């Protein structure tokens, strides 16, 4: 009798699992024979923030959270899709920007209209928007527009001004504009002291790798959230990689000058320079040496692609 008591639930479980397995097999067969057409689900059907605010009523901040999640998924999904293509088609010369990320700004705009104090949406959103194609839409103008929107609601938010200065510096290479934003941020009560010196450095040595390093270090130290700090750490590692590439290139050029031709690989340079092995970047990925003797970063490195270095400020004539 006791055995029967134990066997019955077991038999039920076996039957249930078998039926579920059968259902899964049928579903898999249906998907194989009649695959669902892929539907681009990136469209925004409701584009008016005020209308959405009215529709969501007391739940507008919750709706903002949902739009924020959607914006992150959209940005991350597009970035991964383009990365999988390896070499996404470059934008046509006459087009301002490719439209792979076309819904990113509307999503961020809706998020921040539904919740005008959504701090992270402004700060992350500005970075997402300013990133160069294919890592982002390459729209620093929209990044500034988003941050200015945040400042209209919170004029004392020096972090948004710092971010705007950073966008001007890193993506637009407008050092005067960057210094203006850093100065504005420094004037806010409670802003950190180093913003003032950052403004001065930017104005004097904009584009200099060392001043870039100072800026990223400042962002790393002031980052309120993990993602911003990690992003700053990655940028600092990229700057270290740029330094390393410069010194590696010098060694390769020395070898080429003495041998009369570029090295066929790393082995002769490693021997000549008495290095312990093939040089690796700060993430541990080996550097690549092209047949023309140019040193570069491996495409598989987490630090790739390296940033386009801003042009250095020309001393006034």
């Amino acid at each position, binding site marked *: 009798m006791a055995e029967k008591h134990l066997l019955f639930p077991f038999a039920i479980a076996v039957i249930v699992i078998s039926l579920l397995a059968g259902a899964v097999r049928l579903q898999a067969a*249906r998907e194989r024979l*009649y695959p669902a057409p892929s539907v681009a689900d990136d469209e925004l059907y409701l584009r008016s923030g005020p209308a959405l605010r009215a529709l969501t009523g007391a739940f507008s901040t919750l709706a903002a959270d949902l739009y924020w999640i959607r914006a992150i998924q959209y940005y991350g999904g597009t970035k991964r899709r383009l990365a999988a293509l390896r070499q996404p088609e470059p934008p046509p010369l006459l087009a301002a920007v490719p439209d792979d990320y076309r819904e990113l700004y509307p999503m961020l705009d809706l998020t921040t209209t539904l919740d005008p104090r959504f701090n992270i949406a402004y700060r992350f959103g500005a970075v997402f928007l300013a990133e160069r194609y294919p890592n982002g839409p390459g729209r620093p103008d929209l990044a500034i527009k988003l941050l200015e929107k945040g400042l209209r609601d919170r004029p004392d938010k020096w972090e948004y001004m710092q971010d705007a200065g950073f966008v001007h510096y890193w993506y637009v290479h407008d050092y005067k504009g960057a210094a203006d934003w850093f100065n504005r941020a420094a004037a806010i009560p409670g802003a950190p002291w180093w913003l003032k010196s950052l403004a001065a450095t930017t104005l004097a040595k904009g584009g200099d790798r060392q001043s870039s390093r100072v800026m990223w270090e400042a962002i790393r130290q002031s980052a309120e959230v993990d993602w911003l700090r990690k992003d700053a750490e990655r940028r600092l590692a990229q700057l270290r990689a740029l330094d390393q590439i410069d010194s590696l290139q010098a060694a390769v050029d020395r070898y080429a000058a003495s041998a009369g031709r570029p090295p066929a690989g790393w082995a002769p340079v490693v021997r000549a320079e008495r290095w312990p092995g093939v040089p690796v970047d700060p993430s541990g990925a080996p550097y690549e040496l092209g047949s023309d003797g140019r040193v570069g970063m491996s495409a598989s490195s987490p630090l790739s692609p390296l940033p386009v270095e801003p042009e250095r400020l020309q001393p006034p004539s």
Partner: protein
Amino acid sequence: MNAIGTIALNVFRESIRDKVLYNLVLFAVLLIGASHLLGQLTAGQDVKIIKDLGLAAISLFGLFIAVFIGIGLVSKEVERRSVYSLLSKPIRRYQIVLGKYIGLALTLAVNVGLMALALYALLFYMSWGLPPEADRVWDAPVRDPAMLKAVALMLIELMLITALALVFSTFSSPMLSVAFTFGFFIVGHFSADLRNFDQVVDSPAAARLARGLYWVLPNLAQFDVKSQVVHGQFVPFGYMVLTAGYAGLYIVMLLIIAMYVFSIRDFK
């Protein structure tokens, strides 16, 4: 078998007594009112919109019947304490569950059938007197029999949702059962997102978990062919068979769970 049939018939009669069929009046008013309005508002797209509206209303009304009555089937008996008089009769517990499910499935079938009939009647009325070539304006003929495919899959989906509601009502309170069933309904319609989770997260473990959930949770999106039939796209017979087969196995699995839970439940 006799007991199951008697219970099923009683559930059907009870739902008629509970004025469930009143929703048909609402449905008819909605359609006739909409057809009158849309003719003036939709720049010649009235037939398409009437089809969309009609099929969506069938689905929505059916969903409410399936969820609210499906949950009441068992939990109402327990709340009213009428379950004791049922259990004192020479009926097995599984027969009660099965009978109630079949009764509600019958109610749903009648409801959905009558709503579909009303939709066709309206479309007949709208196309009355039009020359045969008038159909060429639309993606699909006005009185397209292929719409029945969408209606059939909707009915099968509703039967699956009823089985889900029944499972929850065997062990949970009515409020929670409604929340669970609607939750599964929503997840079931968006489960494709779970399948493609690896495109938006870096964690392989999270992607695997999401993919596992995709296969285990009921996939309800496959029952929705409303858009295809309205736009005159062919829905293959094999698709219907595989989808219906999936629902059949899933429903049997859910009913076995419901019968087992109900049979071991202590009503003291």
